[in-house]
């Protein structure tokens, strides 16, 4: 990592407006630029598509719908929160790994296995008292996801198998595991297509609006907890130490291998919780088509948040609101949902290019851009010994 002098030259304090501009300029300009790119994509594609009337303001319709779908009214906001919830858990999972120098591409698989754990126990306890059923099913989801994270952690610690490879592979295995169980032992016998029973009492109670389940609150709590764990406990200190310098960690009496296993397990548990929150909070049962893009979106969320747990909440909210608004955008403007991906990518792109932006905007504040995360570290670091 680059060193930066703490001895920045003293300048007379700028006015409040100027200071606010220094802080807000980049996010604001990045958002505007991304929207601009999106508008260009929309206009350009209008020219390609035949058989539709050219509408020079289609982009406006689209953005208006996107915002309205995400924030226009209670239903929309709740829906945004529901979409945000698994992204918070997933983003925390990936960020947590980054902090220990591990790149967990396996959030995808851990999500599925976590949901699987939740549905197994949830269905079994469908008639049990709700508090018991909910807690047990949630725990099962965390444990199942954790187990799926434990495997690559254990393999890395024992044989040095690179976690990037093993987690990618386990993502595929998870899909098969899910299909085998949902079409096999978990299948409702009478159903014509593979589907599990409903989780009944294990379903998360609704706390806000029509669909806002308790997982939303759980996500906020989890973010706080992860922050506390990382920055206020000795375990967090050890994990961050191993991530930053495994040799020094070993020197200091920490046990990098054990921490690698623990971190991957915990990260897997968080990703499992993402799956659990979707299953118990939204779908309540599982079809064999149960799939997700949360795992990969989580990587982007963690990167955008620069692996900071609190930042993860904000980044997840951004991504979640786009997902929530995408439906209305498709209805009102007929814009394919993929535009959301384009927007997300351009936001990341302009943030990465923010040094250039700063130059263009003549901003001077020395600020570590998004470029500085532990992410790349994660690929380079090897466990010692």
């Amino acid at each position, binding site marked *: 990592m680059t060193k930066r002098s703490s001895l920045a030259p003293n300048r007379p304090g700028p006015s409040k407006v100027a200071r606010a501009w220094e802080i807000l300029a980049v996010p604001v300009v990045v958002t505007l630029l991304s929207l601009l790119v999106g508008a260009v994509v929309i206009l350009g594609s209008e020219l390609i598509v035949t058989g539709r009337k050219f509408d020079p303001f289609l982009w406006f319709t689209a953005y208006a719908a996107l915002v309205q779908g995400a924030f226009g009214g209670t239903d929309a906001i709740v829906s945004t929160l529901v979409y945000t919830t698994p992204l918070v858990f997933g983003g925390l999972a990936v960020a947590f790994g980054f902090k220990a120098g591990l790149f967990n591409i396996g959030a995808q698989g851990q999500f599925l296995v976590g949901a699987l754990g939740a549905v197994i126990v949830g269905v079994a306890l469908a008639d049990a008292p709700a508090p018991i059923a909910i807690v047990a099913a949630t725990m099962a989801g965390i444990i199942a996801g954790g187990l799926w994270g434990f495997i690559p952690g254990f393999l890395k610690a024992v044989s040095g198998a690179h976690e990037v490879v093993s987690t990618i592979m386990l993502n595929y295995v998870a899909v098969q595991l899910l299909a085998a169980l949902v079409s096999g032992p978990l299948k409702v016998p009478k159903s014509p297509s593979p589907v599990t029973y409903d989780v009944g009492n294990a379903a998360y109670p609704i706390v806000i609006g029509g669909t806002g389940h308790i997982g939303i609150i759980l996500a906020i709590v989890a973010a706080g907890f992860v922050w506390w764990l990382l920055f206020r*406990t*000795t375990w967090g200190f050890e994990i961050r*130490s191993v991530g930053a310098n495994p*040799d*020094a960690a070993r020197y200091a009496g920490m046990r990098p291998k054990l921490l690698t296993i623990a971190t991957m397990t915990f990260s897997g548990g968080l990703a499992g919780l993402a799956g659990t929150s979707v299953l118990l909070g939204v779908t309540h049962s599982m079809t064999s088509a149960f799939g997700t893009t949360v795992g990969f979106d989580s990587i982007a969320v963690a990167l955008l948040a620069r692996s900071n747990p609190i930042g993860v909440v904000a980044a997840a909210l951004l991504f979640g609101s786009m997902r929530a608004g995408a439906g209305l955008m498709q209805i009102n403007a007929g814009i394919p949902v993929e535009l959301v991906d384009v927007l997300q990518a351009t936001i990341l792109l302009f943030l990465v290019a923010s040094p250039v932006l700063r130059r263009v905007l003549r901003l001077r504040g020395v600020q570590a851009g998004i470029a500085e995360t532990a992410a790349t570290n994660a690929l380079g670091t090897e466990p010692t010994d």
Partner: protein
Amino acid sequence: MTDETGPTLAPALEMRGITKRYPGVIANDGISLQVRPGEIHALLGENGAGKTTLMNVLYGLATPDEGEILLDGQPVAISGPADAIARGINMVHQHFMLVPVLSVAENILLGDETMANRIFLDRREARRRIVELGRRFGFEIDPDAKVGSLSVGWQQRVEILKALYRKARILVLDEPTAVLTPQETEEIFGVLRRLAGEGHSIVFISHKLYEVLEIADRITVIRRGRVVGERLPSATDEDDLAELMVGREVQLTVDRGVSHPAGPVLQIRGLEARDDRGQAAVRGVDLEVRAGEIFGIAGVAGNGQDELVEAIVGLRRPSAGTVSLAGQDVTGRSPRKMNEAGVAYVPADRHRFGLILSFPLADNLVLTSYYRKPYARGIVRDPKAILRDATTTIERYDIRTPAATVRASTLSGGNQQKAVVAREFDRDLELLVLDQPTRGLDVGSIEFIHRQVIAKRDAGTAVLLVSAELDEVLEMSDRIGVMFGGRIVAVLDGRTADKNEVGLLMATGGAERVAALAATSA
């Protein structure tokens, strides 16, 4: 080559008013320097004085803010290392610029390859050239050996060969002797004299004053980025140079006082350990360090010292033998257990082991005690207690830093080392293990650390000191073990040991030479 030693000739190299600023630091502040053809010109200065920066400017690695460079009287603008090399300037860098996974030949030829055709390398020709080049300067070198598997001394030779291969007119050597034995240093000096005799100009940087006095034709001393004096070796001495460098009088030799050794603290029997590549590095070491004494281990780097030390402190599992502490067998205990048993360890590589550079200084000061009271209650850390103690430690050990909360990476090397020392020294100890505690530090910092070590000894701690700096071992130790080929080949009295004798033992292993050589080459 023409005879061009006359004083009327233009200097081969002239640097005029070079100024280079880094954020918050003026590394070079209007430095001027003249180097004549055929001259060995020494550059002296404490850590951070700006020596390396000046040479980086010359080599095109740094762009000066002001000033100009003249070669043979002609002003030139050096755009980068490639340009510098093309102009006949070459540099042996302070930190190895070698690629460990490449072979000796590949490292030497890199950037100036022998080609079989436009695309592919001619590896046979490359080998031939390297062997020939080595012979010319008296090194018998295997061109196919991986550089990473060579000892530090040999790596240094490769660095020098690399520069020689490029047929430099102006050769810069930035602390080339820091890791060499006296004998190896002499060998290199022979080469330098010969080159100078052939008319090459040499800029030589070192912290070892006697070396400078021996080799240099002229000496320039810089302090805080400015030239503070120029001397001829005949008209100066070590004390004068030291004072010029630091700006005050410095005590160059340690006043170690008398020691009062008590019972044995550390006992090692038949210890064996392997290095990271699985090769035997420590081959049966017997050793005893008593309370209140400093046991120094002298040896050329790469003779198993690091592995020995790591095996003692629990970072490396011994493959045979025992380690006991105060009569208790502690073989194979974890670093944590050893630490709790009263063993402190100052590692050789402070960036790799000693510190987490991206963490705040305060966190680094509790790196080995973060989990204990008062820094943690259960698993919950107490940031207030950590910060409070950090502040007092910073004061007591005079660590120069704006705050306890800055990243450790922003501290200078000397202050980073002080932080490690402060952390490790600041409690009651049974055994103190020091590996190269003053590597790369200037005389002021060295003085400080040496005093702390003596104080620990006098408090009854057993001290094991490993250093490639022979003078340091000789000055500090009550007893000296010479390590060669993974064995302690001799144990001498620290007060009577003769420098040349120890140097010879370090280089050859003495009586065991033949056997050890056979073993290492196997």
